[in-house]
Protein backbone atom coordinates (compact mmCIF):
# COMPACT_ATOMS: atom_id res chain seq x y z
CA UNK A 1 0.00 0.00 0.00
CA UNK A 2 1.09 3.52 -0.69
CA UNK A 3 2.98 4.90 2.30
CA UNK A 4 1.14 8.23 2.15
CA UNK A 5 -2.25 6.56 2.29
CA UNK A 6 -1.01 4.74 5.40
CA UNK A 7 0.21 8.01 6.95
CA UNK A 8 -3.03 9.82 6.25
CA UNK A 9 -5.25 6.91 7.35
CA UNK A 10 -5.38 7.71 11.11
CA UNK A 11 -6.21 11.36 10.44
CA UNK A 12 -8.90 10.47 7.91
CA UNK A 13 -10.33 7.95 10.33
CA UNK A 14 -10.32 10.53 13.14
CA UNK A 15 -11.97 13.11 10.91
CA UNK A 16 -14.63 10.59 9.93
CA UNK A 17 -15.31 9.83 13.61
CA UNK A 18 -15.50 13.53 14.46
CA UNK A 19 -17.92 14.14 11.58
CA UNK A 20 -20.20 11.31 12.70
CA UNK A 21 -20.03 12.66 16.27
CA UNK A 22 -20.88 16.18 15.15
CA UNK A 23 -23.61 14.85 12.87
CA UNK A 24 -25.24 12.89 15.69
CA UNK A 25 -25.08 15.88 18.06
CA UNK A 26 -26.76 18.08 15.46
CA UNK A 27 -29.19 15.48 14.16
CA UNK A 28 -30.37 14.25 17.57
CA UNK A 29 -30.18 17.75 19.10
CA UNK A 30 -28.10 16.53 22.06
CA UNK A 31 -27.71 19.40 24.56
CA UNK A 32 -24.10 20.61 24.97
CA UNK A 33 -24.13 19.90 28.73
CA UNK A 34 -24.70 16.19 27.96
CA UNK A 35 -22.39 15.79 24.99
CA UNK A 36 -20.87 18.74 23.18
CA UNK A 37 -19.92 18.31 19.53
CA UNK A 38 -16.37 18.90 18.25
CA UNK A 39 -17.38 22.35 16.98
CA UNK A 40 -18.49 23.41 20.49
CA UNK A 41 -15.29 22.04 21.97
CA UNK A 42 -13.07 23.95 19.57
CA UNK A 43 -15.20 27.02 20.25
CA UNK A 44 -14.73 26.60 24.00
CA UNK A 45 -10.97 26.37 23.54
CA UNK A 46 -10.85 29.49 21.37
CA UNK A 47 -13.00 31.36 23.88
CA UNK A 48 -10.76 30.49 26.82
CA UNK A 49 -7.37 29.61 25.37
CA UNK A 50 -5.30 31.84 27.67
CA UNK A 51 -6.52 30.12 30.84
CA UNK A 52 -6.41 26.64 29.32
CA UNK A 53 -2.90 27.11 27.89
CA UNK A 54 -1.66 28.39 31.26
CA UNK A 55 -3.18 25.33 32.89
CA UNK A 56 -1.54 23.06 30.32
CA UNK A 57 1.82 24.70 30.99
CA UNK A 58 1.36 24.19 34.72
CA UNK A 59 0.54 20.49 34.24
CA UNK A 60 3.47 20.02 31.87
CA UNK A 61 5.83 21.66 34.36
CA UNK A 62 4.77 19.16 37.01
CA UNK A 63 5.04 16.32 34.48
CA UNK A 64 8.57 17.18 33.37
CA UNK A 65 9.77 17.80 36.91
CA UNK A 66 8.39 14.41 37.90
CA UNK A 67 10.00 12.81 34.86
CA UNK A 68 13.41 14.27 35.73
CA UNK A 69 13.08 13.15 39.36
CA UNK A 70 11.84 9.70 38.22
CA UNK A 71 14.76 9.26 35.82
CA UNK A 72 17.30 10.29 38.47
CA UNK A 73 15.73 8.22 41.21
CA UNK A 74 15.07 5.22 38.95
CA UNK A 75 18.65 5.11 37.66
CA UNK A 76 20.13 5.63 41.14
CA UNK A 77 18.07 2.82 42.64
CA UNK A 78 18.75 0.55 39.66
CA UNK A 79 22.49 1.15 40.12
CA UNK A 80 22.24 0.33 43.81
CA UNK A 81 20.33 -2.85 42.96
CA UNK A 82 22.91 -3.84 40.35
CA UNK A 83 25.79 -3.15 42.73
CA UNK A 84 24.60 -5.23 45.64
CA UNK A 85 22.20 -8.13 46.11
CA UNK A 86 21.40 -6.82 49.58
CA UNK A 87 20.25 -3.50 48.11
CA UNK A 88 18.23 -5.36 45.50
CA UNK A 89 16.51 -7.45 48.15
CA UNK A 90 15.84 -4.37 50.25
CA UNK A 91 14.57 -2.07 47.49
CA UNK A 92 12.60 -4.31 45.14
CA UNK A 93 9.54 -5.06 47.31
CA UNK A 94 9.13 -1.40 48.24
CA UNK A 95 9.31 -0.31 44.65
CA UNK A 96 6.57 -2.79 43.80
CA UNK A 97 4.45 -1.67 46.77
CA UNK A 98 4.73 1.96 45.65
CA UNK A 99 3.85 0.90 42.13
CA UNK A 100 0.70 -1.04 43.05
CA UNK A 101 -0.63 1.45 45.62
CA UNK A 102 -3.22 3.65 43.90
CA UNK A 103 -1.85 7.16 43.99
CA UNK A 104 -5.39 8.53 44.40
CA UNK A 105 -5.46 6.89 47.81
CA UNK A 106 -2.23 8.39 49.09
CA UNK A 107 -2.28 11.73 47.26
CA UNK A 108 -4.34 13.51 49.98
CA UNK A 109 -1.75 12.48 52.58
CA UNK A 110 1.14 13.59 50.43
CA UNK A 111 -0.54 16.93 49.79
CA UNK A 112 -0.86 17.40 53.55
CA UNK A 113 2.70 16.23 54.30
CA UNK A 114 4.41 18.20 51.54
CA UNK A 115 3.46 21.74 52.34
CA UNK A 116 4.45 23.20 49.02
CA UNK A 117 1.67 22.36 46.48
CA UNK A 118 3.94 22.20 43.43
CA UNK A 119 6.28 19.70 45.05
CA UNK A 120 3.36 17.70 46.42
CA UNK A 121 2.16 17.24 42.85
CA UNK A 122 5.65 16.31 41.69
CA UNK A 123 5.95 13.70 44.46
CA UNK A 124 2.63 12.11 43.47
CA UNK A 125 3.50 12.07 39.78
CA UNK A 126 6.94 10.63 40.58
CA UNK A 127 5.42 7.78 42.58
CA UNK A 128 3.39 6.84 39.50
CA UNK A 129 6.17 7.39 37.00
CA UNK A 130 9.45 6.12 38.41
CA UNK A 131 8.83 2.39 38.28
CA UNK A 132 9.31 1.78 34.53
CA UNK A 133 12.65 3.62 34.57
CA UNK A 134 13.74 1.64 37.61
CA UNK A 135 12.70 -1.78 36.37
CA UNK A 136 13.90 -1.23 32.80
CA UNK A 137 17.27 0.17 33.85
CA UNK A 138 17.70 -2.64 36.37
CA UNK A 139 16.89 -5.18 33.65
CA UNK A 140 19.34 -3.46 31.30
CA UNK A 141 22.13 -3.48 33.87
CA UNK A 142 21.46 -7.15 34.59
CA UNK A 143 21.50 -8.03 30.90
CA UNK A 144 25.10 -6.94 30.24
CA UNK A 145 26.55 -9.53 27.83
CA UNK A 146 28.41 -12.11 29.91
CA UNK A 147 31.27 -12.46 27.44
CA UNK A 148 31.98 -8.74 27.62
CA UNK A 149 32.00 -8.88 31.41
CA UNK A 150 34.56 -11.71 31.11
CA UNK A 151 36.60 -9.63 28.70
CA UNK A 152 36.66 -6.75 31.17
CA UNK A 153 37.68 -9.11 33.97
CA UNK A 154 40.49 -10.61 31.89
CA UNK A 155 41.88 -7.15 31.30
CA UNK A 156 41.81 -6.23 34.95
CA UNK A 157 39.01 -3.66 34.68
CA UNK A 158 37.92 -1.91 37.86
CA UNK A 159 34.26 -1.90 38.90
CA UNK A 160 34.07 1.75 37.91
CA UNK A 161 35.46 1.06 34.40
CA UNK A 162 33.05 -1.83 33.97
CA UNK A 163 30.15 0.40 34.98
CA UNK A 164 31.02 3.43 32.87
CA UNK A 165 32.43 1.73 29.78
CA UNK A 166 30.18 -1.30 29.63
CA UNK A 167 27.16 -1.64 31.90
CA UNK A 168 25.71 1.87 31.59
CA UNK A 169 26.04 2.15 27.81
CA UNK A 170 24.68 -1.39 27.42
CA UNK A 171 21.66 -0.44 29.55
CA UNK A 172 20.94 2.81 27.68
CA UNK A 173 18.35 1.37 25.25
CA UNK A 174 16.50 -0.22 28.19
CA UNK A 175 16.57 3.06 30.12
CA UNK A 176 15.20 5.00 27.15
CA UNK A 177 12.37 2.50 26.67
CA UNK A 178 11.51 2.86 30.35
CA UNK A 179 11.69 6.64 30.17
CA UNK A 180 9.16 6.65 27.35
CA UNK A 181 6.63 4.75 29.45
CA UNK A 182 7.42 6.92 32.48
CA UNK A 183 6.77 10.07 30.44
CA UNK A 184 3.12 9.28 29.87
CA UNK A 185 2.73 7.93 33.41
CA UNK A 186 4.14 11.16 34.81
CA UNK A 187 1.35 13.03 33.01
CA UNK A 188 -1.25 10.62 34.40
CA UNK A 189 0.24 10.99 37.88
CA UNK A 190 0.29 14.78 37.63
CA UNK A 191 -3.36 14.86 36.56
CA UNK A 192 -4.48 12.51 39.34
CA UNK A 193 -2.63 14.61 41.92
CA UNK A 194 -4.11 17.80 40.50
CA UNK A 195 -7.60 16.33 40.82
CA UNK A 196 -7.04 15.58 44.48
CA UNK A 197 -5.34 18.90 45.16
CA UNK A 198 -7.92 20.74 43.03
CA UNK A 199 -10.85 19.38 44.99
CA UNK A 200 -9.01 20.74 48.04
CA UNK A 201 -8.99 24.21 46.50
CA UNK A 202 -5.52 24.32 44.96
CA UNK A 203 -6.14 26.02 41.63
CA UNK A 204 -3.65 24.87 39.03
CA UNK A 205 -3.30 22.59 36.05
CA UNK A 206 -5.63 21.11 33.50
CA UNK A 207 -7.18 18.67 35.95
CA UNK A 208 -8.32 21.58 38.09
CA UNK A 209 -9.82 23.23 35.02
CA UNK A 210 -11.65 20.00 34.21
CA UNK A 211 -13.07 19.88 37.75
CA UNK A 212 -14.00 23.55 37.65
CA UNK A 213 -15.71 23.24 34.27
CA UNK A 214 -17.59 20.21 35.57
CA UNK A 215 -18.87 22.11 38.60
CA UNK A 216 -20.04 24.96 36.36
CA UNK A 217 -21.52 22.61 33.77
CA UNK A 218 -19.20 24.10 31.12
CA UNK A 219 -18.99 20.71 29.44
CA UNK A 220 -17.46 21.92 26.11
CA UNK A 221 -14.67 23.60 28.11
CA UNK A 222 -14.17 20.39 30.08
CA UNK A 223 -13.80 18.48 26.82
CA UNK A 224 -11.38 21.09 25.50
CA UNK A 225 -9.17 20.54 28.56
CA UNK A 226 -9.42 16.77 28.06
CA UNK A 227 -8.38 17.08 24.42
CA UNK A 228 -5.37 19.17 25.46
CA UNK A 229 -4.37 16.47 27.95
CA UNK A 230 -4.66 13.72 25.36
CA UNK A 231 -2.60 15.73 22.89
CA UNK A 232 0.03 16.47 25.55
CA UNK A 233 0.28 12.74 26.33
CA UNK A 234 0.74 11.86 22.68
CA UNK A 235 3.30 14.60 22.24
CA UNK A 236 5.32 13.39 25.23
CA UNK A 237 5.21 9.77 24.03
CA UNK A 238 6.15 10.78 20.50
CA UNK A 239 8.92 13.15 21.56
CA UNK A 240 10.56 10.65 23.90
CA UNK A 241 10.38 7.99 21.19
CA UNK A 242 12.01 10.33 18.72
CA UNK A 243 14.76 11.33 21.16
CA UNK A 244 15.45 7.68 21.90
CA UNK A 245 15.63 6.72 18.22
CA UNK A 246 17.87 9.62 17.28
CA UNK A 247 20.18 9.07 20.24
CA UNK A 248 20.64 5.34 19.62
CA UNK A 249 20.97 5.75 15.88
CA UNK A 250 23.59 8.44 16.33
CA UNK A 251 25.47 6.30 18.79
CA UNK A 252 25.40 2.92 17.06
CA UNK A 253 25.27 3.78 13.38
CA UNK A 254 28.39 3.94 11.31
Amino acid sequence: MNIWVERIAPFAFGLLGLSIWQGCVWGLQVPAYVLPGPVDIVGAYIGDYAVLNAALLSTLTVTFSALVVSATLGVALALAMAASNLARAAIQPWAVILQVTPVVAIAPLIIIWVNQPFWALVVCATIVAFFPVLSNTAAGLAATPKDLLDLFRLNGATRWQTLVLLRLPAALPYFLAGLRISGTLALVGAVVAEFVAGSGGFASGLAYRILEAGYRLQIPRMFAALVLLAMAGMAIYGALGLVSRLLLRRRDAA
Partner: protein
Amino acid sequence: MIVVDGVSKRFPNGTLALDQISARFQEGEFIALLGPSGCGKSTLLRLLAGLEEPSSGQIMWPTKNVGDIGFVFQDATLMPWMSAAENVFLPLRLRGKSRAETKPAVLAALAQVGLAEFADAKPASLSGGMKMRVSIARALVSAPKLLLMDEPFAALDEFTRFKLQADLHEVWRRTGTTIVFVTHSIYEAAYLASRVLVMSPRPGRVAADIVSHVAEGPERRTAADYTAFVKQLSDTLRQVMPA
Protein backbone atom coordinates in the same frame (compact mmCIF):
# COMPACT_ATOMS: atom_id res chain seq x y z
CA MET B 1 55.48 -23.48 29.03
CA ILE B 2 52.03 -23.77 30.59
CA VAL B 3 51.44 -26.89 32.62
CA VAL B 4 47.97 -28.25 33.31
CA ASP B 5 48.34 -30.75 36.12
CA GLY B 6 45.52 -33.12 37.05
CA VAL B 7 42.83 -30.47 36.63
CA SER B 8 39.21 -31.41 37.36
CA LYS B 9 36.19 -29.17 37.30
CA ARG B 10 32.91 -29.97 38.98
CA PHE B 11 30.12 -27.43 38.66
CA PRO B 12 27.95 -26.44 41.65
CA ASN B 13 25.10 -28.54 40.21
CA GLY B 14 27.28 -31.63 40.55
CA THR B 15 28.20 -32.10 36.88
CA LEU B 16 31.78 -33.25 36.42
CA ALA B 17 32.88 -31.30 33.35
CA LEU B 18 36.58 -32.12 33.34
CA ASP B 19 38.24 -35.17 34.84
CA GLN B 20 41.97 -35.18 35.59
CA ILE B 21 43.22 -33.20 32.63
CA SER B 22 46.99 -33.03 32.28
CA ALA B 23 48.73 -31.30 29.41
CA ARG B 24 51.73 -29.13 28.59
CA PHE B 25 51.55 -26.25 26.16
CA GLN B 26 54.88 -25.22 24.68
CA GLU B 27 55.52 -21.68 23.60
CA GLY B 28 54.57 -21.08 19.97
CA GLU B 29 52.30 -24.10 19.63
CA PHE B 30 48.91 -23.95 17.95
CA ILE B 31 46.81 -26.37 19.95
CA ALA B 32 43.33 -27.42 18.94
CA LEU B 33 41.02 -28.79 21.61
CA LEU B 34 38.83 -31.11 19.57
CA GLY B 35 35.80 -32.89 20.91
CA PRO B 36 32.03 -33.25 20.79
CA SER B 37 29.68 -30.69 22.30
CA GLY B 38 29.60 -30.78 26.08
CA CYS B 39 33.02 -32.40 26.50
CA GLY B 40 34.28 -29.51 28.59
CA LYS B 41 36.65 -27.95 26.06
CA SER B 42 35.22 -24.47 26.61
CA THR B 43 35.47 -25.02 30.36
CA LEU B 44 39.14 -25.93 29.98
CA LEU B 45 39.65 -22.72 28.00
CA ARG B 46 37.98 -20.66 30.74
CA LEU B 47 40.20 -22.34 33.33
CA LEU B 48 43.27 -21.48 31.26
CA ALA B 49 42.07 -17.87 31.12
CA GLY B 50 41.59 -17.80 34.86
CA LEU B 51 37.91 -16.98 34.44
CA GLU B 52 37.12 -20.04 36.52
CA GLU B 53 39.02 -21.95 39.19
CA PRO B 54 39.67 -25.69 38.94
CA SER B 55 37.96 -27.86 41.56
CA SER B 56 41.20 -29.77 41.95
CA GLY B 57 44.60 -29.83 40.30
CA GLN B 58 46.40 -26.74 39.13
CA ILE B 59 47.49 -24.71 36.13
CA MET B 60 51.05 -23.42 36.25
CA TRP B 61 52.34 -20.41 34.36
CA PRO B 62 55.91 -19.19 33.98
CA THR B 63 54.66 -15.64 34.70
CA LYS B 64 51.24 -14.17 34.26
CA ASN B 65 50.26 -10.53 34.05
CA VAL B 66 47.14 -8.72 32.95
CA GLY B 67 47.29 -8.63 29.15
CA ASP B 68 49.17 -11.91 28.81
CA ILE B 69 45.99 -13.62 27.70
CA GLY B 70 43.87 -12.73 24.72
CA PHE B 71 40.44 -14.28 24.51
CA VAL B 72 38.23 -14.58 21.44
CA PHE B 73 34.66 -15.64 22.12
CA GLN B 74 32.25 -17.59 19.95
CA ASP B 75 30.50 -14.33 19.05
CA ALA B 76 32.43 -11.22 18.16
CA THR B 77 31.07 -9.50 21.31
CA LEU B 78 31.92 -6.01 20.11
CA MET B 79 30.44 -2.94 21.72
CA PRO B 80 28.01 -1.57 19.11
CA TRP B 81 28.48 2.03 20.24
CA MET B 82 32.25 1.98 19.64
CA SER B 83 34.09 2.07 16.31
CA ALA B 84 36.30 -0.85 15.31
CA ALA B 85 39.39 1.04 16.49
CA GLU B 86 37.76 1.91 19.83
CA ASN B 87 36.80 -1.75 20.32
CA VAL B 88 40.37 -2.83 19.64
CA PHE B 89 41.70 -0.09 21.93
CA LEU B 90 39.53 -1.31 24.82
CA PRO B 91 41.92 -3.80 26.48
CA LEU B 92 44.67 -1.16 26.50
CA ARG B 93 42.27 1.49 27.76
CA LEU B 94 41.29 -0.72 30.68
CA ARG B 95 44.94 -0.83 31.66
CA GLY B 96 45.16 2.95 31.72
CA LYS B 97 46.90 3.44 28.37
CA SER B 98 46.11 6.59 26.43
CA ARG B 99 44.57 6.66 22.99
CA ALA B 100 47.46 8.64 21.54
CA GLU B 101 50.28 6.40 22.76
CA THR B 102 48.54 3.21 21.59
CA LYS B 103 47.20 4.40 18.26
CA PRO B 104 49.97 2.73 16.23
CA ALA B 105 49.41 -0.58 18.06
CA VAL B 106 45.65 -0.39 17.47
CA LEU B 107 46.08 0.34 13.78
CA ALA B 108 48.70 -2.39 13.46
CA ALA B 109 46.35 -4.92 15.07
CA LEU B 110 43.57 -3.92 12.67
CA ALA B 111 45.99 -4.14 9.73
CA GLN B 112 47.02 -7.60 10.89
CA VAL B 113 43.46 -8.83 10.32
CA GLY B 114 43.08 -6.84 7.08
CA LEU B 115 40.79 -4.13 8.41
CA ALA B 116 43.08 -1.10 8.31
CA GLU B 117 40.53 0.88 6.32
CA PHE B 118 37.66 0.12 8.67
CA ALA B 119 39.11 1.69 11.82
CA ASP B 120 36.27 4.19 12.13
CA ALA B 121 33.43 1.86 11.16
CA LYS B 122 30.84 0.90 13.77
CA PRO B 123 30.06 -2.82 14.15
CA ALA B 124 26.57 -2.32 12.65
CA SER B 125 28.17 -1.62 9.27
CA LEU B 126 30.50 -4.64 9.35
CA SER B 127 29.77 -8.19 8.15
CA GLY B 128 29.91 -11.18 10.50
CA GLY B 129 33.37 -12.13 9.32
CA MET B 130 34.65 -8.56 9.70
CA LYS B 131 33.27 -8.34 13.23
CA MET B 132 35.14 -11.53 14.09
CA ARG B 133 38.30 -10.01 12.62
CA VAL B 134 37.88 -6.96 14.86
CA SER B 135 37.41 -9.32 17.79
CA ILE B 136 40.66 -11.10 16.91
CA ALA B 137 42.46 -7.75 16.54
CA ARG B 138 41.18 -6.81 20.00
CA ALA B 139 42.73 -9.98 21.40
CA LEU B 140 46.01 -9.42 19.55
CA VAL B 141 46.47 -5.75 20.38
CA SER B 142 48.14 -6.35 23.72
CA ALA B 143 50.54 -8.89 22.15
CA PRO B 144 49.35 -11.69 24.41
CA LYS B 145 51.58 -14.64 25.27
CA LEU B 146 48.58 -16.91 25.00
CA LEU B 147 45.62 -16.52 22.68
CA LEU B 148 42.53 -18.50 23.69
CA MET B 149 39.80 -18.95 21.08
CA ASP B 150 36.42 -20.52 21.78
CA GLU B 151 34.96 -21.79 18.48
CA PRO B 152 35.34 -18.32 16.98
CA PHE B 153 34.42 -19.32 13.42
CA ALA B 154 31.51 -21.65 14.19
CA ALA B 155 28.84 -19.09 13.32
CA LEU B 156 30.38 -17.95 10.03
CA ASP B 157 29.57 -19.14 6.53
CA GLU B 158 32.03 -21.54 4.95
CA PHE B 159 33.72 -19.08 2.58
CA THR B 160 34.33 -16.60 5.37
CA ARG B 161 35.46 -19.38 7.67
CA PHE B 162 38.05 -20.69 5.18
CA LYS B 163 39.44 -17.19 4.71
CA LEU B 164 39.62 -16.46 8.42
CA GLN B 165 41.24 -19.83 9.12
CA ALA B 166 43.92 -19.11 6.52
CA ASP B 167 44.48 -15.61 7.91
CA LEU B 168 44.62 -16.82 11.51
CA HIS B 169 47.12 -19.52 10.58
CA GLU B 170 49.20 -16.85 8.90
CA VAL B 171 49.03 -14.56 11.96
CA TRP B 172 50.18 -17.47 14.10
CA ARG B 173 53.10 -18.24 11.80
CA ARG B 174 54.12 -14.59 11.75
CA THR B 175 53.79 -13.79 15.46
CA GLY B 176 54.53 -17.15 17.06
CA THR B 177 51.82 -16.53 19.67
CA THR B 178 50.77 -19.64 21.55
CA ILE B 179 47.18 -20.39 20.57
CA VAL B 180 44.66 -22.73 22.16
CA PHE B 181 41.70 -23.11 19.86
CA VAL B 182 38.48 -24.89 20.80
CA THR B 183 36.61 -26.52 17.93
CA HIS B 184 34.29 -29.39 17.16
CA SER B 185 35.36 -29.45 13.52
CA ILE B 186 37.88 -32.11 12.57
CA TYR B 187 38.76 -30.22 9.38
CA GLU B 188 39.34 -26.98 11.24
CA ALA B 189 41.58 -28.68 13.80
CA ALA B 190 43.54 -30.51 11.10
CA TYR B 191 44.07 -27.37 9.06
CA LEU B 192 44.96 -24.95 11.85
CA ALA B 193 46.75 -26.77 14.60
CA SER B 194 50.28 -27.91 15.18
CA ARG B 195 48.96 -30.28 17.86
CA VAL B 196 45.48 -31.62 18.53
CA LEU B 197 44.15 -32.72 21.91
CA VAL B 198 41.16 -34.98 21.31
CA MET B 199 38.75 -34.91 24.22
CA SER B 200 36.24 -37.54 25.24
CA PRO B 201 32.57 -36.77 25.97
CA ARG B 202 31.61 -35.72 29.49
CA PRO B 203 33.39 -35.93 31.79
CA GLY B 204 36.09 -34.45 29.56
CA ARG B 205 39.38 -36.31 29.46
CA VAL B 206 42.30 -36.00 27.06
CA ALA B 207 41.75 -39.08 24.92
CA ALA B 208 44.58 -38.47 22.49
CA ASP B 209 47.41 -36.00 21.96
CA ILE B 210 48.42 -35.90 18.31
CA VAL B 211 51.12 -33.77 16.72
CA SER B 212 50.44 -32.55 13.19
CA HIS B 213 52.88 -33.30 10.40
CA VAL B 214 50.92 -31.46 7.73
CA ALA B 215 53.30 -29.38 5.64
CA GLU B 216 52.90 -25.61 5.63
CA GLY B 217 52.08 -23.86 2.38
CA PRO B 218 49.27 -22.86 0.08
CA GLU B 219 48.39 -26.50 -0.65
CA ARG B 220 47.86 -27.25 3.02
CA ARG B 221 44.13 -27.81 2.75
CA THR B 222 44.39 -30.27 -0.11
CA ALA B 223 47.70 -32.04 0.59
CA ALA B 224 47.74 -35.79 1.11
CA ASP B 225 49.15 -35.52 4.62
CA TYR B 226 46.25 -33.18 5.54
CA THR B 227 43.75 -35.79 4.34
CA ALA B 228 45.60 -38.46 6.27
CA PHE B 229 45.55 -36.27 9.40
CA VAL B 230 41.79 -35.73 9.04
CA LYS B 231 41.34 -39.50 8.82
CA GLN B 232 43.53 -40.06 11.87
CA LEU B 233 41.49 -37.53 13.89
CA SER B 234 38.19 -39.03 12.70
CA ASP B 235 39.31 -42.51 13.70
CA THR B 236 40.40 -41.28 17.11
CA LEU B 237 37.11 -39.48 17.68
CA ARG B 238 35.17 -42.58 16.61
CA GLN B 239 37.01 -44.57 19.25
CA VAL B 240 36.25 -42.13 22.08
CA MET B 241 32.60 -41.63 21.18
CA PRO B 242 30.20 -44.06 22.80
CA ALA B 243 28.34 -46.28 20.34
